[in-house]
């Protein structure tokens, strides 16, 4: 029998499209971009020397706090809201395997993360062109990075930024599976995210927590914008390994819990 993954994803996206939260997330990110536009120059004039630097700076600011919060809120509600209201029972009473539903929810979480990330990039780029130009990056000696090179690196950085954010989605989904009340799941998701970020340096766990890489690709773009030497490797391999392992572990743990748990209350 064919997989029900595609219709399940369509259902999840259709449901999300009728909620206010995803739109509010996009609106909040847009608003933050506007605020950054007005205060960004004063905060970091070197970083905002050109459009590439402005976009890198703006994205870094968006994904320091607000972006991850909306991503984890969205992910934390994916399962918990359905178990809390009981709609999960109806979804699973159809010819659907639990793993298919869980995978569909993970795909939807990733999709929203990409939409939010794309919205932030579009807002940042749109605001950047008001004052700056997406041209070649140079210094007193001439062109350091051509426009094409800078654009390529922006694209690579943008794609790489999905990896830690994807791990964040899987973490939110795990929280959503563990906690059956949507409000409690959201609170647990946000509070643990902040708790980890505030304490990881103190206990020496920073190198092992994937959240350290959420803004990493944009820091690299800032270097490019300033005409500095940069290199993705080998740090990007560490990022991919750490985020990949985190995403795999949290996804697997959530999936096993979801497939095995009794959904009678």
């Amino acid at each position, binding site marked *: 029998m064919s997989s029900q993954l595609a219709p399940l994803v369509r*259902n999840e996206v259709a449901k999300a499209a*009728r909620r206010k939260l995803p739109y509010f997330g996009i609106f909040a990110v847009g608003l933050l971009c506007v605020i950054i536009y007005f205060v960004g120059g004063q905060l970091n004039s070197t970083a905002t020397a050109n459009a590439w630097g402005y976009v890198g700076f703006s994205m870094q600011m968006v994904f320091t706090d607000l972006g991850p919060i909306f991503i984890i809120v969205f992910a934390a509600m994916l399962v918990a809201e359905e178990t809390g*209201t*009981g709609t999960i*029972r*109806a*979804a699973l009473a159809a010819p659907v*395997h639990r793993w298919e539903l869980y995978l569909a929810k993970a795909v939807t979480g990733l999709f929203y993360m990409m939409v939010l990330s794309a919205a932030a990039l579009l807002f940042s780029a749109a605001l950047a062109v008001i004052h700056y130009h997406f041209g070649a990056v140079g210094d007193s000696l001439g062109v350091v990075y051509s426009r094409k090179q800078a654009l390529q690196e922006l694209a690579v950085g943008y794609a790489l930024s999905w990896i830690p954010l994807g791990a964040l989605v899987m973490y939110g989904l795990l929280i959503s599976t563990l906690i059956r009340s949507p409000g409690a799941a959201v609170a647990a998701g946000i509070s643990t995210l902040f708790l980890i970020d505030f304490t990881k340096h103190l206990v020496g766990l920073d190198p092992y927590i994937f959240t350290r890489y959420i803004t990493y690709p944009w820091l690299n773009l800032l270097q490019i914008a300033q005409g500095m030497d940069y290199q993705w490797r080998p740090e990007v391999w560490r990022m991919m390994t750490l985020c990949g392992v985190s995403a795999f572990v949290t996804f697997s743990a959530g999936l096993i819990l979801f497939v*095995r748990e*009794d959904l009678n209350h």
Partner: protein
Amino acid sequence: MMENPPALALQDLSKRFGRIQAVDHLSLEVEPGQMAGFLGPNGAGKSTTLYMIPRLVRPSGGRLRIFGVDIWKDYKKAIRSVGITVESPAFYEYLSGRKNLELAARLRDEVSPREIDEILQRIGLAERQHDRVRVYSTGMKQRLGVGRAMLGRPRLLILDEPTNGMDPEGTHEVLSFLRQQVRQAGLTVFVSSHLMSEVEEFCDTVFVINRGRLVASGRVKELLKPHERIVRVTFQGRIPDADFLSRHQQIRKAESVTADTLEITLERDDSAWLNQCLQQAGFRVSALAPKQKTLKEFFLSITGPRRAEGPPSINQPPSAPAGPETPPGQTPATPGGDQSHV
């Protein structure tokens, strides 16, 4: 595989939640083309049993087959022929009734928009289909739940308290509709309910569970066969006094129902003897008939008083399934969980 397998077959189905044995080696079979009632006091294990059908709860033991297909071997094949609502149906309240059906329909093959239209018409929600479920009454949600369960033309419909919150008219409409589907389309319906009159009126067979065990099952008509030993006698003029009744050893007891009617319990099934005896003593009997039992009375005689409620404790023997009132021919199960069918 059997040629005509039961629509639903539970075999030694058990579920234990920690120290609580919610379902205890439950075995039952629902034949195709029947409307079967599933009764039991609160905490008897009805909902847990129903939860195990779509694998929302993992059984601790036993097997569960739908039209001969084991749900743990081929879940999708088994569940494709089933429409089910467990407990009060939950919906995406921010979506319309129709959108909720469309989402559910997407997960079932071959559900056309026209079928959704038909279902909305049948459940009486065509005019309110575009309203958000948030503004629906409880009864409307129940009807939408029945509609959702009927998507994809299932052969077996499993409904948990489908008429909760419905007004009498709505209840009758929904159950009549289901009954019609059973008669005309060969649908099988397995419905749990607290409303005995519903089950008595609409169901062909009934399964009664208590403390997770099947305590009685059979055809409703058979289960509700009149008491031959309890006779209602209506008199014209004087009625027999206690002195007269106590002189006859065949009369175990007599209770006054109304001013001119007595309910007389005999030692054996012999209403003809009673009639003759009363006539000979000069009493004018205007009516004499074995007492018709209701499903409610039968249910209470099987499940016992309220102490039967609540989860059973381990090592506690099950209550006696039937007291002295249990008429012969009806089907109290043995305490071990085995049951005989009428």
